[in-house]
Structure formats: C-alpha cells, structure tokens
C-alpha cells in the first residue's frame, strides 16, 4: 500500500453550515502515477472531495471529518494546507479571478515567492516550467489577456513550479470551447506522460475527458462513490444514465441501434471502438429505419439584420457585413470562438451598442430609433451569469422589476402577469423566497422569468447552460423548448455542441467578425472548415457514421437527433 499517494478510508465529511454530511463512506486509493477521473452530477460531492485532497478543507471550509485520509502516507490531521500544497497542486477552473500575479511570470512564481526563493533561482525555475507547458514566450503578458487554453497552461505552470506529486484539475473544461477543451485534455495527457505525476481530474463532461486514456473513473452520486471502474467497464454498464451523466453520443447511438456494449469492443473512445460486421449492420439498419420528416419554418421573418458593421472605439472591428434573418418561433444558435463577434452582435440587436453600418428590422420596421428600454419590450436579453442580473433580494420583486420600472400597467395587472410568469417558469412555489436561497439553476430561471414578464417576442440567451451538469442542462433547455412552443423566438449564443444539435434547427457561425456559415446544425458540425473556424470539434457521431460506411454523416446525425428526441419523450 506504500505507493498509494492518496487514500481515503471510511472517510466522511459534514460542513459546519449543513445538517447532513456531504460525503459518506469514501474508500478510495489513488496510486502514484495514476490518472483518475472523478465524475458525477452537481452536488454529488466531487468538489468537496477535491477540497479534502488539496487542503481547502479544513483551511477555508470548516466542518467535521470522520474516518481517515492519507496524503503521501500522512494523515490529513497531521498536515495543513501549506504542507499539502507541496504534494498536491490544484488547477482551478478557468476564471480570471484565480490569477494573482499581474504578469504570467509573476503568477507562475507566486508559490516560489511564498517560499522565500531567491530571485535568481525563481527566474530559472519559472523559465523551466513555462517551457514545459509552452508559455515561455508569454512571461510578460497579463494572464487575463490570454485565451482560455493558455490561461489554463499558466495556472498549470503555477502549480508545477513547486514539483508537486499530484496534479488536481478542478473542472478543467468549464468555460472552454470544444476545440480548446480537446487541446486541454491532450495537454494534461502529455504532461502526465512526460512527468509521470499522478493526475486527478474532477469533471462531469465525460466524453470530452475520455478523448485521452484514463486509468479509472470514480463515479459519485449523493455523497457516495457509486462506481470505481475502468472507462470501458463504466460505459458497458448502465450506471451513467442512472446517475445523470451524459454518456458519449456514439454510445447512445449504438444503444439505439441495439449494439451490445461490453468491454471487448473497447467503447472508451471512438478511436478504439471495435465494431463487428453484425454491429455495423445493426447501425446501418437502424439509420435507415429512422423516419425523416423535413422541418421547415416558413413563418414570416421577425428579426432581420442587414449589412451590420461595428467597430469599438479603440478601432477593433467586431462585426463586418453581417446579414442574419430570424423567423418567428425559431430556436436557433449563434456560435463561434470567443471574440468572434457573437456577443457584440447581440448587444447591437438589443441597442447596448450602436452599429456604424447596416440596419436591424423588427417585423419589417427599422428599430434604429428605439432606445434600449423600448427594444427590451420586444427583445429580451438573458446574461450568462445570473448573479450579474439579479438586483432584488426577493424572487417576486425581481420578476416584477421590469414592469414596475415601466410604470404603465396598473398594480393588479402587474401582479397578474408576474404570477403567470412565475407559474410558467415553475417558480410560483418560490415566489416569496429570497433569491439567495435558490440554486444556480433556479436563479437562472428567475432571470429568464424577469425578462419573460415583460412579454418579449424574442429572447436572446448568452450561454444558458454553461457549467451545468446534464440534469440541470436538460431542465433549462426543456424549459426553453416549452417557451419556444408557446411562440417565443429564441436565440442562443453558445459553445455547446450538444445544445445546438439537440435543441436548435439552425446555427449561424461567426468567425473574425464575419458570418461564415448559416445552416442546419448537423451540416455545420460535419463541415470541417466551419468546425475549425468556430472552434468546435467534429462530433463522434460523424466518426461513427464513417466507421459504419454510412455515406452521408450529416443525414446520420439528423436521424440520430430525431430518434433521440423521440426516445427522450
């Protein structure tokens, strides 16, 4: 047992502020040099487990621990966060807030500074480790100027500078677009292979992490370890569906086709997957059996942007010659990498920014003369982070805010509309609750409700499901679909390929301030050129289609979505 770097024995933990324990009966051993994924839905205890490993429990979050936890062979009771930080390095999820230093070099050196390392040695070690992760050319840049992927490299360098034994990644994929997420997983794998360090990844996006080999997956649910298996074993079981984790799309497709998934076909990655001739036949038969009915929206155009050009006052050109038509009752997405212009586009539509060229028509009428407030009556905008929107302490007040400020309707009419909205959003039981008592997903609903109460015809949502696990994602998206069914036109700004595929009929792709594609989502995701420009990645479904010699992967995806919608009903 000497080579277990982390070992939980009958470990349990209860936060001081909570009545029930968050972790129960944890028995888990991680061997030196292993690469382990800890997976589970929000609230399953995986973050708490991570905090126990890196010492933030009990340093920042107090509570009661039972049982034993050994880190590097020593009991956690004899260690403190500083001793643990010499053994376990934590890479927090991509967030500007975690950077301490003003420059990349300074940020990487932070741990060394606290160790009173002399300047010369510090410079040398920073140079070494920054070369290892590939940021040595960026030492004088400010971390927040870098792209999401590079930021992650900087935070990794900042913990590796200490020569730790364990690298702990806390949700490394949150906030990264699909292409960057893929590179992040490749980078982690590369560092693991080159340094032989133990790697623990906490993440709920299973398919993305499995892009590279993982030794074991620890599946958690409701504070317990449900399974501790190899990826192949896990995918061969039905545990994922039961615990609310999204299984890889190709696995879902294989299951629909009736293919028996077991360890022998090596299902852990699409690249390793071995399908027999019979299995391929099954997939092809299933593909042909899915009925296609052409979906066409020929309702009138509700919003039209014509030749929109916009540059910021610093001269940065954000939009150039953008033409987009949106039809009534549509649910569509705008995709593209960070800085491609998609957020600016929505700001121009809502009037937060004023375009220099082109015009926007709402039901055929130019809206150039409408103020932000007047536009808001037609086009609602829901920001990504609900905490930035909510300004009233109580749910009811927050949802009523827009109508109260508008000050045109009589009070009982406002009350009636607010009640209606609360019911539609499933928030009626919480109407007199303080907003702070709600979960993140519920807060998101409150922000949507607060926009909905103003009765807009169009709602624009910026990354509505960012950072949400599969269950919350489904909750939010099904709710939006319901709204869409009631006639509200919905525009989603997103990186999430699943979201596009499953809920949108059409996507507009922005790249470098231009529109580069405007097509059904399945066509976008099978066009290698567009996929690259939008920083998306090819879906495993297309690869599965290829593997089974299905000539038209786009059609395969289309039929998969139809079948999937049927199955989920």
């Amino acid at each position: 047992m000497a080579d277990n770097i982390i070992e939980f024995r009958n470990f349990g933990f209860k936060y001081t502020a909570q009545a029930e324990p968050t972790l129960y009966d944890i028995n888990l051993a991680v061997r030196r040099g292993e690469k382990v994924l800890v997976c589970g839905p929000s609230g399953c205890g995986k973050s708490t487990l991570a905090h126990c490993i890196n010492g933030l429990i009990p340093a920042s979050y107090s509570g009661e621990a039972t049982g034993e936890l050994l880190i590097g062979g020593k009991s956690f009771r004899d260690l403190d966060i500083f001793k643990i930080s010499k053994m376990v390095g934590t890479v927090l999820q991509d967030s500007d807030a975690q950077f301490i230093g003003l420059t990349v070099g300074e940020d990487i050196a932070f741990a060394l500074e606290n160790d009173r390392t002399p300047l010369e040695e510090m410079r040398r070690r920073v140079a070494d480790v920054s070369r290892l992760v590939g940021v040595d050319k960026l030492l004088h840049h400010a971390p927040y100027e870098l792209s999401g992927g590079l930021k992650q490299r900087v935070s990794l360098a900042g913990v590796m500078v200490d020569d730790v034994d364990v690298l702990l990644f806390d949700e490394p994929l949150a906030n990264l677009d699909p292409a960057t997420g893929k590179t992040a997983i490749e980078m982690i794998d590369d560092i693991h292979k080159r340094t032989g360090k133990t790697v623990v990844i906490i993440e709920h996006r299973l398919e993305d992490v499995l892009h590279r080999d993982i030794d074991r997956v620890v599946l958690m649910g409701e504070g317990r370890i449900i399974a501790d298996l190899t990826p192949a074993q896990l995918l061969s079981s039905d545990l994922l569906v039961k615990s609310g984790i999204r299984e890889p799309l190709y696995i879902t497709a294989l299951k629909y086709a009736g293919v028996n998934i077991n360890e022998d076909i090596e299902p852990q990655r699409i690249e390793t997957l071995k399908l027999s001739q019979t299995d391929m036949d099954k997939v092809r038969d299933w593909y042909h059996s899915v009925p296609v009915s052409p979906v066409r929206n020929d309702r009138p155009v509700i919003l039209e942007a014509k030749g929109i050009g916009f540059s910021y006052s610093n001269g940065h050109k954000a939009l150039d010659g953008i033409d987009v038509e949106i039809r009534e009752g549509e649910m569509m997405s705008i995709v593209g990498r960070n800085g491609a212009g998609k957020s600016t586009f929505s700001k121009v539509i809502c009037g937060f920014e004023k375009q220099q060229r082109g015009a926007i028509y709402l039901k055929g009428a130019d809206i150039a003369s409408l103020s932000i407030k007047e536009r808001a009556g037609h086009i609602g905008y829901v920001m990504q982070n609900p905490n930035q929107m909510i300004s009233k302490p109580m749910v009811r007040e927050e949802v009523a805010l827009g109508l109260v400020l508008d000050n045109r309707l009589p009070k009982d009419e406002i009350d009636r509309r607010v009640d209606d909205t609360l019911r539609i959003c499933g928030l009626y039981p919480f109407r007199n609750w303080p907003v702070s008592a709600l979960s993140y997903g519920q807060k998101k609903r409150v922000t949507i409700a607060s926009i909905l109460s103003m009765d807009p015809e169009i709602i624009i949502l910026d990354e509505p499901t960012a950072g949400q696990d599969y269950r919350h994602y489904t909750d939010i998206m099904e709710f939006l679909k319901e709204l869409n069914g009631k006639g509200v036109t919905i525009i989603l700004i997103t990186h999430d390929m699943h979201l596009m595929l499953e809920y949108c009929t059409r996507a507009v792709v922005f790249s470098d301030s231009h529109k580069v594609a405007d097509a059904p989502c399945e066509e976008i995701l099978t066009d290698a050129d567009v996929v690259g420009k939008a920083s998306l990645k090819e879906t495993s479904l297309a690869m599965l289609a290829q593997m089974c010699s299905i000539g038209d992967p786009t059609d395969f995806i289309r039929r998969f979505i139809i079948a999937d919608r049927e199955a989920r009903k």
Partner: protein
Amino acid sequence: MTTFDTRLLAVLAVLAFVVMGLSRIRVSEVKVLFWFSFVFMVLNNLLIFLFSPEHGVSIYGTRHEIAHLFLRYNLVQEQLFYQLNVVLKYLATFPVVIVFVSTTNPSEFASALNRIGVSYRIAYSVSLALRYIPDIQREYHEISIAQQARGLEMASRKQSLFKRLRNAASMLFPLIISSMNRIEVIANAMELRGFGKEKRRTWYSARPFRVADYASIIICVLMLAASILMNVLNGGRYFNPFV
C-alpha cells in the same frame, strides 16, 4: 511640501510637467483625471474667495485694494497672490500624482512597500485592490447593461438626482455578490499556493536599486531640504513680496 513659497512652487510645477512629459503618458488616458483635478482646483479657489475673501491680508499683513466688487467682497492684491499660490500648488502636485498612479506597477509597488517594512499581507492587498479595478469596471458595465435592458434609466436627464442615485444603488447588489465570489476564488487560489506560510517572502518583480533610483532619492531629499530652507528664510510658510 508644506511650503507656500511662490518661487519654489513655480519651479516644482515646471518640474512636475517635465516629469509628466518624460513619462510618455498619453493625454487621452488621463484626460478624465485632469478634468477632475481642474474642476476641483477651480471649486477650491471659488470657495476660498467666498468664505475668506481677505485671507491673503491676514497672511501677508498688508492690504492693497484694487477695486470694490460687491457686499464685503473686494479685489485685493494679497488675496490674488495667495490664490495664485494655491493654483501653483495644484499644478505642482497633480501631475506627480497622475504619473505615480499610471506608471507604477502594483506588484513592484507592493514589493517596494514590503521592503521598507510594511507587512507583505498589507502590501499585497494594496496591489490586489489596484489589480481588480479594471475587472470591477468591466463587471459594472455588464451589470448596468442588464439593468438598462429592463428599463432602468441610468443617465437620463429626465430623472431627479435622487432617483438616479437610487437606480445606481440597485446595481450595487449584484456587484457586491459577484465581488464576494471573486474574493473567495482568489483567497483560495492564494492559500493553495502557500500565501501566508512564512513571515517574509521574496518578490519576483523585485527590482535592484540602480543609479537612477539613487539619483531620484537624492533629488527628493534636496527638494525637501529646499522647502525647509525656504520656511526658515521666509520665517514661515509664505514668501511675502509685499514688505
């Protein structure tokens, strides 16, 4: 800088603008600060005149009236000369403050504070506070957009000052919440990397003393000595041309 010696202030003001020029700060970056200090200076002078129209007389001990204005207000040479000193004092200090704020790297400042004996925890919180100002500005902008979209009028002249203040206050709530989250993340990130472990720490951004540093210290000491010397020679803080 306790001196009101006109000759010294004039020299210092010229020097301040030379330093400003040398710093290569673009005017557009500090325009707002400049306007702010200018308005403040004008306001200060008006108020001095309003409340103490003959303050100069009590300082310099003589009274040379030029003209009568209205009520108890007269145009007096001594008062004009005193207020000229006030203006010079502004001109001598504001450029220096602006240069300090916009050219000092917060990390280097923190490392310097620590070196002269300020606890590194305090030095670091100063540096972090400076570092987060742009982040919080961005956040404020985002929040204000979200509120305006719901009909909150921010800059409208149609509304009373009270209502505008109340509207601005309603943006504080989300701003505080998101700042608290930010603080939690940064505090954890710092602790995970050993902040606060030792009594002392080293600084990656520490700069060794160079000739220019010694030179500027000597210049500062000389300027201080000059102002003390002037105090002694003038027999007070003021240079009196009227006797």
